[in-house]
């Protein structure tokens, strides 16, 4: 299926990506090619086949609901672009 520029822009917004104007034609073309390619799944007769949920058809294991993690905030915040007094800094959200 051929995607329009507007559709690609909408998807980009949902994905929180900003696509430069200059790159748009290539993205529209490439994504259209990819979607056209995967469109062949339409013709597969899947009948009442159950969708696969896990490659080994296993259930997720359960564990007791107890605290297993220790506090590593300082270690983790060393990789943060901006922190202050143990908090992650972002642009002002509420005026």
């Amino acid at each position, binding site marked *: 299926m051929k*995607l329009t520029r507007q559709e*690609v822009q909408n*998807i*980009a917004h*949902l*994905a*929180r*990506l*900003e*696509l*430069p104007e200059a*790159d748009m034609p*290539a*993205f529209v073309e*490439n*994504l259209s*090619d*990819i*979607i056209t*390619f*995967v*469109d*062949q*799944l*339409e013709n*597969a007769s*899947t009948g009442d*086949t*159950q*969708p*696969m*949920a*896990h*490659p*080994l058809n*296993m259930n*997720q*294991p359960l*564990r007791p609901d107890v605290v297993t993690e220790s506090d*590593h905030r300082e*270690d*983790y915040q*060393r*990789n*943060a*672009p*901006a922190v202050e007094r143990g908090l*992650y800094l*972002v*642009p*002002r*959200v509420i005026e």
Partner: protein
Amino acid sequence: MHQHTLSELSGLLAGGEVSSVELTRHFLDRVASLDPSLNAFITVTADQALAAAVEADRRRSAGEAGPLTGVPIAHKDIFCTAGVKTSCGSRMLDSFVSPYDATVVERLDAAGVVCLGKTNMDEFAMGSSNETSWYGPVRNPWDLERVPGGSSGGSAAAVSARLAPAATGTDTGGSIRQPAALVGITGLKPTYGRVSRYGMIAFASSLDQAGTLTRSAEDAALLLTAMAGHDPRDSTCVDVPVPDYAAGLSGDLTGLRVGLVREFLDDGLDGDNRKAIEAAASVLQDLGAELVEVSLPNLGLSVPTYYVVAPAECSSNLSRFDGVRFGHRCEDPRDLLDLYERSRSEGFGAEVKRRILTGTYVLSAGYYDAYYLKAQKVRQLIAADFREAFGRADVLLGPTTPTPAFRLGEKTDNPVTMYLNDIYTIGANLAGLPGMSVPCGFVNDLPVGLHLIADHFDEGRLLNTAHAFQQATGWHRRAPEGAFA
């Protein structure tokens, strides 16, 4: 020294013929002098490697050494390594220093391996040529104008060029087996859940699996024994006992049923490549295996299925990169939306963006049933085909790739052409099966790989098949000539 396999080096260390410090220096010297022409490493950890080598030699003299104590290896830069940059081949993580070790790294460290450094890869493991890396493409040691395959291209090139005796890798759609084939080494992707994914940066969580790039099946067996096993920190890591894979290599194939997959050997495979695969099948037959023909009728749908499922999971996994807690952040964001959008747009390369966009599209309202749900149903059909085939055969056989290594830049303009490179490998990921690529000959002086697939948790039989093949042929001992010999 660098021509020895990991298993041979293990023997030399045990016999006191070489120390870990000597070995480590030797490989670090090779990396320093030869890697500039390959670009296989993103980070070389020389100081840590030498310190680990000293410790390994101490362990050995104290009588505490195991088979891997003191052998140098390299880790794909997708595995978190505490205190060492872990980039995943992306500008997004260019300044990321992992606060913890991946389970794979932790287990190999405990076994005493020496990590030489972190290898180059396609960005976030998305690519089949190592050309999507933020750190530039890796070159194939057999022909520097050609790609080494991807996404574990740095690990593959490093092992092929004898810059490291072995390396770790990850395989989501062929990212261990395809590069192993293109550079003439042995690649093993274990069963989904055999090896912990904890600390392995996620691409598509229902497909990702850690494995090995080595010079022989014997080496792969040694490493897998140390890497595999239950890990409560990865809820999909399966609690199934880990055999001693190296001890299980009898080399005996008597009674083994080898399935020739009709769809692997059809017209899509070019003549010389086909001859190499057919010759390999004859070798297995001479070794006592029985050849049977099997069919995987839905295999033709595996690439389109993958390119719905994998991007969908990637778009979800990569939403964590938001410029707030770690990773790249844009300069002077106007507001929070601008912070997210510009940080992600600057941090990710074109292929990663295409996959995020594809995944977002197939998961978006109105399209979910037609794409994602449909793909998960087709995936079930593909898995059922494999189940049926394993009723008739123990190991399936085919080529790893349609062609030998292609030229740099040859397929970068058309993503779908690039995606079709993984046509033979993706099925095993969709069904969660273990697969291997072993060198089986040359086409136009470039190595080609034999692809073997086994049933879930049957790595032992898979490795033994590859081992017997390697005992009977010498393809895996061939090294690139010239500078890397």
